[in-house]
């Protein structure tokens, strides 16, 4: 009888261990979930939000001091709509829609990009 009693305890411990392992695996799982818009200036992320929140008509002011940069979303994607950088290259950049798309305002040292929140199979691109 003693054996049976301890068997019960044993299986409880094993079940608990299994549950704990599952919890651990779950906690460290690759997080999945859509696309994220990020803006980075001087090594700091100054804006991060789900790309889905940037729907038509929503504008984001990423200006800093005398450097004006405003992005907005339309059906073609997220693009720079106002910038006072010399050359204005960022205003002509292709709108961002998919993971990996990027618009850079080199004179204002501003990077905007769409990143995939899911852990992809690739760490970085060579181009």
């Amino acid at each position, binding site marked *: 009888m003693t*054996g049976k009693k*301890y068997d019960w305890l044993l299986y409880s411990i094993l079940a608990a261990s299994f549950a704990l392992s599952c919890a651990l695996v779950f906690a460290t799982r690759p997080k999945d979930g859509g696309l994220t818009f990020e803006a980075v200036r001087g*090594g700091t992320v100054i804006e991060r939000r789900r790309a889905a929140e940037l729907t038509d008509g929503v504008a984001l002011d990423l200006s800093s001091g005398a450097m004006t940069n405003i992005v907005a979303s339309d059906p073609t994607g997220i693009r720079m709509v106002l910038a006072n950088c010399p050359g204005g290259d960022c205003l002509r950049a292709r709108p961002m829609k*998919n993971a990996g798309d990027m618009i850079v305002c080199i004179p204002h040292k501003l990077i905007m990009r769409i990143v995939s929140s899911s852990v992809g199979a*690739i*760490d970085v*691109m*060579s*181009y």
Partner: protein
Amino acid sequence: MKRFFNLHSFIALCSIMGIAAIFIINRLDPLNTVSRDGVALDTVISVTASAPKSISELNGILNDAFALIEELDDRFSMYNENSDVSLMSANAGGEWVPVSRPTYEALAAAVHAAKLTDGAYDPTIGPVSIAWRDRLSENSLPSEEEIDAALLRVSFDALELSSSPPMAKLDMPGGVVDLGGIAKGYVSSSVRNLLKERGVTSALIDLGGNVVVIGGRPRNGSGTRTPWRIGVQHPSKPRGTPICVVSLSEGSVITAGDYERFWEVDGGRYTHIYNPATGFPVDGRLKSVTIISDDPTQGDALSTAFIVMGEPQALELLRIMPEVGAIFISETDDEEYRITATGDLKGAVETTPGGPHIAFHDTW
């Protein structure tokens, strides 16, 4: 019965100890990671570094890495009139110019690469690239005369170096030094040295698509490492779409592509890679070359040179360079793509789902 119970106790104990060990490893694993992005060298740069150090120590290391990148950018830039490179061009055909040690080293690597590739890479291509850029930016094309005049001022033989103190001289009136084909490679190599000297055990350095990796990728802080996975850009698909993937724990992956920077004038497409023999932008079936090696500086120059040389000649040169791996992406007649890789990359490069088959070519 008692024996049976002891065995089960033993198994249970082992399970509990196993779980405990996982927790302890996770808690005690001292590896921290910091990551930073910026704009320098006319491109987007990103450095991720891991080490058994505090976050603030790691941030200090990244501060120094970014300061180094900016310093080197200032020295190498054609567009900064006080850079070493601009001063050399301003004194072209005249006096020796004192340069910084890094500029000397980058120039020495550039001259070496130029000799190795018989001028397919040429750090004095400046007059040609400027002639094209000036015309293309106003939506026209340079005339034959303009190109010929520019070509006369292109010659890496005119680049002279003196080691101590570091000095350089471009013995060519009207010559222009352009380190664009080697600067990012040299800077990434310098950043790698700095990170390693400061005890960084795992890192990913991305200077506008020039990639250098250190020590494999840490997995979930568990202490195990897997190779970094580096996508090679598809020549005609949106940025971030790989055509093949390289797995590498330590080394550099440097790509030159004719799709990367180009001008469109009158329906024609003009890339920023020029053939130093003709003075014209490259316009071939070879769309990109990726160099995998331990030397990103040389890799940068070789990737550009190989686009100019074409695949057969590049493969011929690689026969004497067993330490260098290469991937060639070419356009086929039916507007598909073909991938050739050197034999040493078997197992390290794979195609993407639905992507072209990779033909491995044994060079030695």
